[in-house]
């Protein structure tokens, strides 16, 4: 009888202990969490709502706001070379610390040879890059 009671008390003690430990761990994780975001889009016009979302998230996250990377790919990638219409997006991205990235594979496939706005980075394969960001724990949207 005594053994049963002591094992009951012991198991209660262990369960309570592990619960407390997990609460502590999740609290520690919350304190250190940085939110990184990746968006893959085929439509340059979507940069406006995407950057508005980035602005709201930066405000909401405060110090926890990490990277915000926008990858442009697909047949309309040539729209990135319209420097005049890209100007407000580039300014806004710079203000927010967001990156605009062009998919090298799409540029080649759709024979885009024009100049990209200053500040637009290039990666070999936008889809691969997006998946790599997800592997790193980025929250992701593919539009």
């Amino acid at each position, binding site marked *: *009888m005594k053994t*049963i*009671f002591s*094992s*009951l008390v012991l*198991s*209660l003690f262990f*369960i309570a202990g592990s619960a407390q430990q997990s609460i502590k761990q999740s609290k520690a994780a919350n304190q250190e969490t940085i*939110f990184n*975001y990746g*968006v893959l889009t085929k439509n340059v016009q*979507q940069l406006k*709502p*995407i950057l*508005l*979302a980035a602005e*709201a*998230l930066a405000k*909401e996250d405060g110090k926890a706001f990490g990277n915000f990377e926008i990858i442009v790919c697909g047949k309309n990638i040539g729209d990135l070379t319209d420097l005049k219409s890209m100007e407000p997006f580039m300014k806004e991205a710079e203000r927010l610390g967001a990156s605009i990235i062009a998919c090298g594979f799409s540029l080649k496939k759709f024979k885009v040879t024009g100049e990209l706005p200053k500040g637009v980075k290039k990666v070999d394969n936008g889809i691969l890059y997006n998946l790599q960001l997800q592997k790193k724990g980025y*929250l*992701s*949207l*593919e*539009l």
Partner: protein
Amino acid sequence: MKNAFNLLFLFLGFSLMAQQNTITDFVVLTPKIQQLQPILLTAQEVESKGDFQVILYGKEVTQLTDPKVRKFIKWAQKVGVKLSVCNMSLEKLKIDPASIPKEIGIVDNAFLSAFQLQKKGYKILSL
């Protein structure tokens, strides 16, 4: 003696159940109204105890004022799926939010909502 044993097992059983019963929430972001059919079928199959939301955006949101959409609205209600539409899309297409069926929620920016839900732990499918 027997009672103490029962109590011990009952307690351990409950604590194990509490650990296993994790709830999964889902969000689907889509610009295609016709995709509501496979999405709602999926929601039915998933039988999640969690939340299931669909956020619509883009040109096709004009179709939400069409009476044909009612069947999807009823179906979504039946399977507990919350439908929402992006207000930025409504504004761009000059659609009066009042013309959207009241069962469909309106979010300011579909992309922002999709990220906010992911931050809360929702699994996302963007179509």
